[in-house]
């Protein structure tokens, strides 16, 4: 197992992140567990960071009380109350923001669904830990499924755009 972690993964991770935004580079297809775990952690953290920011903004605008329950409690999602509606909007905006983070951190079209689902599975587990039971309301499931879809589709679109870019072969050292 030691061999797995002996790689120069930091250098590779930075390069992956940088090159996805720039586009136009050959990329390693090797299985790199350290890189994947790091990507999952980064995505999970930024998911909660952005969700927190969006909820905070919308709370300030809508003059609701800011509370952690809004992130993790199923009863705070729904179309029948103003606060519930704002929350759903925060979730939707968050998944769009996370698609950009997905583009920057992962940058692979075929891995978008994988990572988007992983983030939401993480969130699902987070909800269970916070409330102590599995979320049961229709709106919680609805919101999250739509969020996965939004994040995947926008992420794939962004990644595909940079993956389609031409890879220049002349005038620079090519790292095949």
């Amino acid at each position, binding site marked *: 197992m030691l061999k797995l972690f002996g790689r120069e993964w930091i250098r590779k991770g930075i390069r992956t992140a940088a090159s996805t935004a720039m586009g136009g580079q050959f990329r390693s297809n*090797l299985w790199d567990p350290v890189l*994947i775990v790091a990507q999952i952690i980064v995505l999970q953290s930024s998911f909660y960071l952005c969700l927190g920011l969006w909820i905070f903004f919308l709370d300030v605008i809508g003059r609701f009380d800011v509370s952690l329950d809004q992130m993790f409690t199923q009863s705070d999602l729904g179309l029948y109350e103003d606060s519930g509606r704002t929350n759903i909007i925060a979730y939707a905006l968050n998944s769009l923001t996370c698609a950009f983070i997905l583009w920057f951190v992962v940058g692979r079209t075929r891995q978008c669904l*994988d*990572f988007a*689902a992983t983030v939401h*599975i993480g969130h699902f587990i987070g909800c269970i830990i916070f409330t102590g039971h599995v979320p049961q309301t229709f709106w919680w499931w609805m919101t999250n499924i739509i969020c996965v879809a939004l994040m995947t589709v926008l992420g794939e679109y962004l990644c595909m755009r940079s993956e389609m870019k031409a890879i220049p072969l002349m005038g620079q050292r090519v790292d095949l």
Partner: protein
Amino acid sequence: MYTLLSGLWKYLFQKDEFFVLILGLDNAGKTTYLEQTKTKFNKGYKGMNLGKVTTTVGLNIGKIDLGKTRLNFWDLGGQEELQSLWDKYYAESHAIIYVVDSSDRERIEESKAAFDKMVVNSSLHGVPLLLLANKQDLQGCMSLGSVKDVFNPIPQVVGDRDCSTEAVSALRGDGVYEGINWLAECIKRNVVSRPPTQKEIT
């Protein structure tokens, strides 16, 4: 997470890949031996008609699984012009099978010369070697003892490696099991100096 888990699965269950060269003069029975090996070790593999084996141009490849190890065979063409290609494979091989046609007394010296040239190659240092006296099913063939006598000065050249000789009949399939199993054991013993080729996990 899917990528992570599927990669982990591949990592845990990947087989150790080894490469085995099958060498020998033309018409010694290398391709037949390979076909026989594939038939015996791969369940459900319907071998080709052994009567229809012709001259190998280029190479034939074969693959067998023995538990957690996978043996890949490279059966190279044995004609004189093709022998110059042999040494391109030496650095990446983990074992050598050298097939001798023991019914062909006229060319046994030629076989010995090709063998000597091969065995002293430095990229083959320490690689297990299996010498097969093939075509034991034919009448009037040389016995394993007399083939051994011809190849006798082996000890000095062979040096520090596992080495075995065996009488086989590739056509009938006699002695194929024992040879391959012996070779697999030697490859595993030699794994420190010749580690298995790792397939990259994508």
